[in-house]
Every structure is written in C-alpha cells, then in structure tokens.
C-alpha cells in the first residue's frame, strides 16, 4: 500500500518534470550567440598575435582562453539580452566586443556576465570579470578601488514619463505629487533625494521594474542616465517619452582592475585611434534615436 503510494508520487513528479522540460524545448535558444549579428558586417576586425606585456588581466585572459566581460542586460540600445534568441545587443555590448576583438578574441571567445550596478566594483576587485562595460560612470570615489578607461560616452540624468503625461516637462516640474523611480541606491536616485527634497521616491533593483511601474501608473517618472531612458522610449514610443535636458553629466568608462595601466593604455589608444569604428557602433545601436553625440576625448589619467 505504502509502496504504491510512493510510486504514484514519484511518477507524478516525473510526469511533471517531463512536462516542464517539454515547455522549455518549445522556445528557441541559441547558446553562446551565433556571431550575434546576422547579415550586417561588423565594423571592427579581430586582431591577431596580440601581446600586452605587464597586464595581469591580459595574462588571466590568455590563461583562460576567453574574455569575461561584465555587462547590463536590461537596457535596450545599450546593453540588452533578448531572452528568446539569446542575442546580446547594444552600444555598450558592442564596445565590449570591440575591445575583445582588439585583444584577439571573437564572439566565441567572449563570456558575458550580467552584473547589477551595486556589485560592479566588487566583481572587478574579485577578478570575476576582466572588464566592465555597462553605463559605468567615472567617479573619483570609484577610482580608489578600480581604474577606468575612456570615457567612451557622455550623457546625463534625464526623465522618462508616460507619453500622455503633460504635467512633467523637465526636472523643474518634480514636486511632492510626482513619484520618481530609479534603481536601488543608484546615483540618480541619491541625486533626487538630496537635491529635490520632498519628491517621493521608489526604488527597485532594476530599471526595467521602474519602467513597468511607470506604465502601471504606480510612479510618475523614471530617472537615470538619458541614454538608458532613450532606449526604453525607443522600445515603446507610443507609451513612453523622454522629457527635458540632461541635468547632470555622466561619463561612461570601461571598469578595469586597479593598477592594470597597460590594459588601460591599450583601450584608451583603441578609443583614440578608432573614431570611425566608434561612429559605426553608435550608428548601428543608437543612431535611430535622434540623439546627437560625438565621441568624447579619452581621459588618459
């Protein structure tokens, strides 16, 4: 009696497990990426016989045989993972690929890791990733723990609102009736709390959760770097819009292990020499957004 019951239970579990796997195999997946970009030609070429003497990061990369890059995956246009195809796209991701190519690694030699904003310094310090490209603002405080190559992009804090919102045209319209959302603890939310006292704030782990809350009407505006917001607005132009001008300046850099001056100089040189490639990467990712940006000069400190 007891045995049959256990058997029955086990078979139900087995059927359930089968049913679950059946669901899973229904969605197309292409692990590892299939070269990523079907059709169009990559603006960069993969270097051969690269040597970077005295770069501990490059030593790790060659020992391992592949590059591990920290990125974002919920920011359309900058760092985005399409979960159905497994394809990563975006300006930051392409910058990361370009750097990998300059080190002699093509798409097969790259492992992307999604790392949340709050964990970036620690991941670089721990050596979990070789470098980080994902809307990473260069600040003096961060330079105490890690190094930055770049900047490769300059933007500033902006506001995203619902397309039918008339009351908020810029940051001057924020008051106690407008709830603003951003990622937990992020610089933009700290800026709002300090410089716009009285404005209610809401914080979730991911910007995408804030955008969801904005569409639901739970919050009235989402704030973070304008480049990120433009990506969301471009994804759903009939529901979302970006208002106002950037009211801070954020300079995006590539996060590196502290003290790896050889790799930093290499990436800075790559950015300085590669103006055409930079422009091509910008055009294929953010060109349609209508924002006008020129490549910033690198700050080889």
């Amino acid at each position: 009696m007891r045995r049959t019951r256990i058997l029955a239970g086990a078979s139900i579990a087995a059927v359930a497990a089968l049913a679950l796997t059946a669901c899973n195999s229904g969605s197309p997946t292409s692990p590892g990426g299939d070269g990523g970009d079907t059709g169009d030609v990559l603006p960069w070429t993969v270097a051969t016989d690269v040597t970077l003497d005295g770069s501990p990061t490059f030593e790790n990369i060659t020992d391992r045989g592949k590059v591990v890059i920290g990125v974002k995956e919920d920011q359309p246009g900058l760092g985005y993972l399409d979960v159905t195809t497994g394809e990563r796209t975006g300006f930051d991701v392409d910058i990361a690929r370009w750097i990998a190519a300059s080190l002699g690694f093509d798409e097969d030699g790259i492992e992307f890791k999604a790392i949340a904003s709050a964990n970036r310094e620690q991941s670089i310090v721990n050596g979990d990733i070789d470098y980080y490209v994902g809307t990473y603002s260069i600040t003096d405080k961060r330079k105490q723990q890690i190094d930055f190559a770049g900047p490769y992009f300059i933007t500033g804090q902006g506001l995203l609102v619902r397309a039918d919102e008339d009351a908020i045209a810029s940051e001057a319209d924020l008051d106690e009736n407008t709830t603003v959302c951003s990622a937990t603890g992020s610089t933009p939310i700290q800026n709002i709390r300090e410089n716009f006292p009285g404005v209610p704030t809401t914080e979730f782990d991911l910007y995408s959760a804030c955008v969801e809350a904005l569409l639901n009407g739970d919050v009235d505006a989402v704030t973070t770097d304008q480049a990120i917001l433009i990506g969301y607005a471009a994804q759903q132009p009939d529901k979302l819009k970006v208002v106002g001008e950037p009211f801070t300046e954020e300079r995006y850099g590539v996060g590196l292990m502290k003290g790896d001056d050889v790799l930093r100089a290499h990436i800075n040189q790559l950015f300085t020499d590669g103006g055409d490639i930079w422009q091509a990467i910008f055009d294929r990712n953010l060109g349609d957004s209508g924002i006008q940006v020129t490549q910033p000069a690198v700050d080889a400190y």
Partner: protein
Amino acid sequence: MGVLFDNLDLWGQALGNTLLLFLAGGAIALVLGTIVGAMRVSPVPIARAVGTIYVNIVRNTPLTLIFFFFAFGYPQLLPSPGFTVLAMWALGIYTATYVAEVIRAGINTVPVGQAEAARAIGLPFGQVMTLIVLPQAFRSVVPPMMSVFIALLKNTTVAAGFSVMELGVIRAYLSERGENALVVLLWVAAIFVVLVLLLSLLQRRLENSWRIAR
C-alpha cells in the same frame, strides 16, 4: 570607520527605518499573534478554523511573496499608504503566525485545572484567557518568543527589495558612493549583532523577573 562616519546621513536613516519596521511589525505581530493563538484554542469551531487556516497559509508562504503582494498587489486594490507602511504590515502579518504558535505552546503549558477552576467560578472564555491562561502562558515562552522577534529583526532586510530604505539597502547606496561593499556589509552585520545582543539582554531580564515557582 570612515565608511560609517562619512555617510552618517544614510546610516542614521537606514537604522531608523530598520528599527521602525521591527517595532511596528513586532507590535502588529504580538497583538495579532496573541488573538490568533487564543482563537486556535477557543471552544468556537469557526474561530479555531479561521486561526488554523490563517497560520497554515501565511506561515507556509515565503516572506518575499507576502512582500510581493503588499508592494504590488495591494496598491491595485486599495490606495497605497506607502511602501514603508506596507512593509510593516507584511512583516507583522507574517510574524504573527509564529507568535501565535509560540503562544499556543505556552497555553499548553498551563495546567488544565487552572482553566477549569476559572470556568468553575463563572468566568467567560475571554476572561479565562486574559486573566488566567495568557499571563501564565507568556511567562513560559519568553525564550522562543524572543527567537521569533530576532528572526523578525533580520527579516526586515527583505524590505530592501521593495523600496524601503533600511540596512539591507545601504550596501547599494554606499557602493554608488565608492565604498568597499565588503566593509559595508561587515558594518551591517556588526549593527545586527549589537541589536540582537540588546534583545538577548531584554530576554534575560524578562526571564528573571517573570520566573514562575513551580
């Protein structure tokens, strides 16, 4: 030390909110838990059933899911009083189930003769409970009750994911300010150890002053 003193504004706010969640959640849990605990031993079948269903459903639901309901589901039904208040209710309602079970265990330690004697002199169920049984039950469950409250204190960090600025969030803030995340977490751990030590001290005092001679 610099991590602490350079960012006192954030630490103060975070600690204040953690304590607020703990005290408010604890008060809700104590009141609600005592009522539910009493319901579970009451002579009224419906009260017993409601108590049993509440304890079994809420206690078997992960705290994160309860928070999820309060943060995202509740505001769809009724106007939201703000995430901090919702977090207090989530913590209080969740912890109340544990309080109820601890109190029920305490009630079981009170000799049946006590309740029978109280009934014999004509006290109704409410007075049997509040005058005779619960005071004795509370005294015998101080250690497990304090464990429930220590768990509640640590559970407040779950609110970090739901837009409440407390000690669970501070790492994200300080890592944006460029502080070392591990040092921040060590400080958070140290603060929790101090708070738990204070609770243990309170427990020892209550145990000594409420001891029943048996």
